[in-house]
């Protein structure tokens, strides 16, 4: 399911930790769960600005951007990432989660955030949502094919094939 059956390409997802807080527990769990579910995951690491996230998203040619925000700055950071992606002329869906009060969610959805996951969400719920809502972009494009052939160079990119035993 995580592999598009028509083209055989695997979805590439960016997991971004924007803002100044260091709460990366959730982002790391989600990144790992998405990888284990068969997606290709690019994790940005901590303390990213919206500009840095968007630059990575473009460079890595991802199919979706997910953001983890626990600093209370979600009303600033989500719209900013969406705006910068728009400016760059790419239609990459943005979703995310963190400590986000219920009443802020409609505003974020209106700003273009495709889904907002709040504390207590299981990783399976996120995986299911991705499977049913995210589709590969630029299918068959030459640049994408070239990128997919490129071997994973950075440690931050995890693929199921490279997975070591993780449970002890």
């Amino acid at each position, binding site marked *: 399911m995580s592999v598009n059956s028509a083209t055989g390409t695997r979805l590439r997802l960016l997991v971004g930790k924007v803002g100044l807080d*260091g709460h990366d*527990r959730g982002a790391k769990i989600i990144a790992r769960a998405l*990888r284990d579910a068969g997606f290709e995951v690019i994790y940005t690491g901590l303390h990213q600005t919206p500009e840095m996230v968007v630059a990575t998203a473009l460079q890595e040619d991802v199919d979706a951007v997910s953001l983890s925000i626990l600093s209370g700055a979600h009303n600033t950071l989500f719209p900013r990432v969406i705006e910068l992606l728009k400016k760059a002329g790419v239609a990459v869906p943005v979703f995310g989660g963190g400590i986000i009060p219920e009443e802020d969610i409609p505003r974020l959805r209106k700003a273009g955030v495709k889904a907002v996951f709040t504390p*207590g969400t299981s990783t399976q719920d996120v995986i299911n949502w991705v499977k049913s809502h995210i589709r590969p972009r630029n299918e068959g494009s030459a640049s994408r094919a070239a990128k997919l052939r490129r071997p994973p160079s950075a440690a931050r990119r995890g693929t199921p094939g490279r997975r070591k035993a993780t449970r002890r």
Partner: protein
Amino acid sequence: MKQGGASVLTRRRTRREWEQEVLNPALRKSPERMKEFTTLSGVPVERLATAENLESWIPDEKLGLPGEYPFTRGPHPTMYRGRLWTMRQFSGFGTARDTNRRYRYLLDHGQTGLSVAFDMPTLMGLDSDDPRSAGEVGREGVAIDTLADMETLFHEIPLGEVSTSMTINAPAAVLLAMYLAVARRQGVPWPQVRGTIQNDILKEYIAQKEWIFPPRPSLRIIVDMIAFCTRKVPLWNSVSISGYHIREAGSTAAQELAFTLADGIGYVQACVEAGQDVDDFAPRLSFFFNAHSDFFEEIAKFRAARRIWAKVMRDRFRAKDPRSWMLRTHAQTAGCSLTAQQPHNNIVRVALQALSAVLGGTQSLHTNSMDETLGLPTEQAVTIALRTQQILAEESGVASTIDPLGGSYFVESLTDTLEREALSLIAAVDRMGGIVPAIEQGFPQREIAEASFRYQQQLEREEKVMVGVNRYREGGGARIDVLKIPASVEPTQIRHLKQVRKRRDPLAHRRAVEELVRCANEGENLMPAMVRAVEAYASVGEICSALKAPFGEYREEKTYF
């Protein structure tokens, strides 16, 4: 019981006989709820602890008496019969003026200690007008850019009378300098200034992840601060060695214990290597642990922490002053255990966690508010959290006797188990050459990420339960009020900062920052120059950015597995 005929009449079953004759038939009739029982951290819990668990256990060695080595029963001879733990609630939001108003309200209502929460930009050493600060100013704590803000924060608060705890790490030296500068302006001599600064950078690399410089120069700043406080601010607790954030990042109890104490060993080692006498500074080191949800495991953790530290300080560092052996700690209930679903249940969680910290013998305690998974707490939620502590202290009777669980077969064997597990992790850190190389190799970070992922999987398989989250769910969810930080805070704070920059003497400012950088380059103690720099109204962001030249910047490997 073993003598004469009486034993035949009164003889009880041995454990083995009980298992065969009583237990096994009962198990055959109805099996236990689970195949295996474990603590929250995964430590196996046996069915029944008996005297057999403590066969080779020597009370004099393992327990001692309160206020005596190895301090398992508590650091003070009277514990809560003499003085209750300090109820210290952490707060800060918006601008310095907003928070000052809250502090004066708290002091007017009988609180004697303050605990400052700084906002994210301040914690990262950034000014409010830095582009990276956008959206974060004053949101999770108070925004402090220059000494002018610090003067406002403590306006009409006599620093000679209150004790202040400041939760700040990477830029801790700057904030301590500002606090001392305010004290000087109030005419309070530094030897009278009392308080604690968290200043625990090692756990930032491990867990909380708010860093500026790489580990080695950061450690040097802390060594400078410890030496400076020993000489000039002797009542100041110069580091609060913190396991809280390690646990919040998803560690087990034993990992929290081990990595925190390993950090402590790292600081002591660095100071000793810099030529300080261990007994000069060790009595002013304090600790900060999490009070999580597994009741007995937490109690055991606090008790084991004191025993391990006493031995480390006496035997490894050859400290002679018993105050150097004594682990004094603050505790805070576990933020990560609170649920956004059915938030009122959090009141009960906090009460149980607080009770475990008290039975574990903590010296001070922060109880979380039920709404903290949703935002900063409202005044009503904070009051319930504080009342929880008062009920424990004054209604429940638990403060009337010292270490009431001492001698419990189960608690003592769990204390031994946690001690053993922590010592084995500390030994692993030692084999890597100490905590700094271990951090550089990512060892604690990996161990914690692994434990956190394991726990998430257990939750999803319902092997571990969070009420209201993976069991006893309700639709909809209760709405509760949360504190709103007005959008005007950020522009107001930026305006203040610009005014200060315009008003200050530019030449004095430049010279003071250059002098600080010179001290950094030439290995002089940074603190005197730091105080002069903040007195010239150099901002947190300007100072931290100037120090990146001599110290460099930390970059973490972007790995999630």
